[in-house]
């Protein structure tokens, strides 16, 4: 699945998961915390919704742990799209 399609899916799932929030337009550089205003528990909820969307369990924990170990201070949608491309 190409990255444009996954980014489009991701934006749709984010909007459906948090329908009461306003999100700016997103691209691969957008950051989950800083730009979308998500908090850590929101990522747990979003992960569950993405698993439902794609119909399979996804190793989000290992993905997030890897980001932390790399010293990342946020989760870019580009990282998230690459993760989904690899796992769905």
């Amino acid at each position: 699945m190409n990255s444009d399609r996954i980014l489009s899916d991701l934006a749709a799932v984010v909007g459906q998961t948090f329908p009461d929030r306003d999100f700016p337009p997103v691209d691969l550089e957008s950051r989950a915390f800083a730009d979308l205003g998500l908090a850590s528990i929101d990522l747990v909820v979003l992960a569950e919704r993405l698993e439902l969307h794609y119909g399979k369990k996804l190793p989000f924990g290992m993905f997030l742990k890897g980001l932390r170990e790399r010293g990342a201070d946020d989760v870019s949608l580009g990282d998230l799209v690459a993760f989904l491309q690899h796992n769905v």
Partner: protein
Amino acid sequence: MPEVEVNGTRLYYQQAGAGPDVLLVHAVTSNQAVWMFAGLVDALAQDYRVTTYDLRGHGASERPQSGYTSAAMAKDFAELHSALGLGPAALVGHSFGGVVAMHAALDYPQTVRGIILSDSFFPGLKHIEPNFGKMNIWADLRATFQKVGVDLGDTVDFTRLFRATAELSPENFKTLEDIYGAFGRGWLRQLPKLAETNCGDEVLEVAGLTAERISGMTQPVIALYDEFSPFLATCEWLKKHVARCSVEIIPNAKHLALVENTPAFTDAVRRHLKALTL
């Protein structure tokens, strides 16, 4: 969202994996994301059915005014355990999560086969713990809040922390968000919400979990305490007074081993869970 109504409160939970039941219980002001971000859920889900949930008032769970003692939260756990149809479970509890785990093991012994504590302080053991109130992480917190002109005092006071955060100006709140960074922002945002509850005072109540009750614990207790923990006196007490308690020190950590030394913490939990679930 997977939710369950227990003890009059709606709790948000997640499950992964298959095998013997393991429940991960987070600390006060935290939420279940901490386990996912540390990679512990994925690591354990290879061998266990792992259930994580947000304590009442935390994360995506409902936030009632009261019910924040370890006794009330142990009842939450027991009802969640029943509602989800779990078997006798191994509980891993970080800090206050360990207090809830201990209380659950004593009040609802059929639900708990053993517990793993991570750097827990027990209000019922306050008399043997010289460092409560002077915790290093409280000192760190106090120093950070002083940067926005807020004095939290030199003794641990959750209610004061929650109220002070609720009263911050938007500018000062943003300053603290920038200091704590993306991964800490969710933690900070939870504090003013807890100011609307009795959580700050109730979590520090003994609530029946006295030294005498703790020493009567019959299930296995694994006490993982951090090398630079403020609660090493508690660790020693547990080793001496709880019949089936074994102790392991997690190096290079001061209260948040699962974050500060994730590999060592994960390795210890996996080893001890294997023994607990044989």
